[in-house]
């Protein structure tokens, strides 16, 4: 899922400093699961922003709503009435949600309350880690199910580099060396010989460098 983290409240407050009434829109998708933009966080943020403004003697009115998902137009439609009389919309979704709201209500000031960080999963309660680089050309079958594109800090496909020591990456003792993990796993699987094959340069045209990507399923398209 997408992992996002709320921006510091001062930064969010600064983006809506001129507003008297704002709509805060949470998302019941990924950001609810990673506890950064669900219903609860939306209410807490609204309340925090009001308190901040009250302390400044500058009243702020807030309206809150949590969409099922902000990345589907049908769930954005429901904001129609709420958006009308607010000065700005604060989206607590990932960057997709912010853009969907901005596109749908193009005369509204829409601001992001979150920093969209990565695609990952939880490794412990309250801990999320990046697992996928969204490169559009999965090679996990060659690397023992561990992604070197995103988990190796140099994205080496023929690793490990010379900075790998004691199982850790040179950039931090808190970061596992992806190639140590790959090596250990391939060794356990009896497939070390696979790592001796020279992996060719990656086709990045399937990644962001090919421009914004589109996925089409004609079988489910209507009309």
């Amino acid at each position, binding site marked *: 899922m997408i992992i996002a983290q709320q921006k510091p409240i001062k930064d969010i407050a600064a983006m809506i400093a001129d507003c008297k009434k704002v709509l805060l829109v949470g998302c019941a998708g990924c950001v609810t699961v990673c506890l950064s933009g669900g219903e609860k966080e939306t209410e807490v943020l609204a309340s925090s922003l009001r308190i901040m403004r009250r302390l400044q003697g500058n009243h702020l009115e807030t309206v809150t709503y949590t969409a099922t998902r902000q990345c589907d137009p049908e769930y954005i439609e429901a904001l129609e009435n709420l958006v009308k009389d607010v000065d700005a919309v604060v989206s607590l979704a990932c960057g997709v949600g912010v853009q969907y709201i901005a596109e749908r209500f193009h005369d509204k000031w829409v601001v992001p309350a979150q920093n969209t960080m990565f695609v990952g999963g939880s490794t412990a309660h309250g801990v999320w880690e990046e697992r996928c680089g969204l490169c559009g050309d999965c090679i996990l079958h060659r690397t023992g199910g561990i992604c070197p594109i995103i988990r190796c800090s140099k994205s*080496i496909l023929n690793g*490990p*580099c010379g900075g790998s020591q004691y199982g850790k990456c040179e950039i931090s003792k808190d970061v596992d060396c992806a190639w140590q993990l790959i090596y250990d796993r391939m060794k356990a699987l009896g497939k070390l010989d696979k790592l001796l094959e020279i992996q060719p340069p990656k086709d990045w045209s399937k990644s962001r460098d090919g421009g914004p990507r589109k996925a089409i399923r004609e079988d489910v398209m209507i009309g």
Partner: protein
Amino acid sequence: MKTESKLQKLLDSGHFAVTAEIGPPKHASAHGIRHHAHMLKDYVDATNITDCQTAIVRLSSIASAVHILDCGLEPIVQMTCRDRNRIAIQSDLLGAYSLGVRNLLCLSGDHQKFGNEPSAKNVYDIDSIQLIYLMRRMREEKLFFSGEPIKEHEPRFFIGAVANPFADPFEFRVARLEKKVEAGAEFIQTQCIFDMERFERFMEMVRERGIHERVHILAGVTPLKSWRAAKYLQTSVSGMIVPDDIVERLKKAEDPKREGIEICIEQIKHIRNIPGVHGVHIMAIAWEEVVPEIVERSGLFPRPKVE
């Protein structure tokens, strides 16, 4: 394949090669590079020019190489994958060759986190092994990385790579070296060696696989100025092993700098007797002026001449 590299001629004819390293400055004057080039030119066979080492912005490796050439010394241009995509790499290397550079060392490059631009966007479009492979293919099959033919004047670099016997997983280090040789590396320069025992084990594994017969291995050495420098390498630099006795020896020394030079000379004399090592690569980080003495006292002076 024969190239116009003097370093290749020396190595291929069985000489024990000596290379050193010059770190370009953090400014726009070639004065220091030229000073070091003049100082080293009779003592080493070629000099590496680092490519923004530790991700610190420095005068470009290729521009420095031209100054070195002008001083009558053969440069080895280092090319990292950190800062350039495959378009920039090819363009820069065509340019380097056109300027007379004949030796190329392919590296992934230190992560930008350690440098003076830690918020830079890194590239790592291709990795060092892919770079080696693609440069060899460019030279031998006359193809750009894309596969498009190079109609004429393909760059014919003598291609090198690095190996670090002190990084992990240790058992995979020799396999990775072999992978680099398989990709097309013709000479290898190693990380600075302080843990001689581990290096000996590494070389044993290299010989078992016959890799030393397929590639020229130059062992890396670094003269240390103080016990603090040794301690720093021991504790703060990833992929380095510095045994305690080296730290202690420098600590006890009356003149640590002299002791650092002595240790380095002892290491070179030892390394010369390790089967499969074809040369030594002296990385006197910001201490280039001691290289002539080290070369001379290690019994490696004068350097052989080749046509």
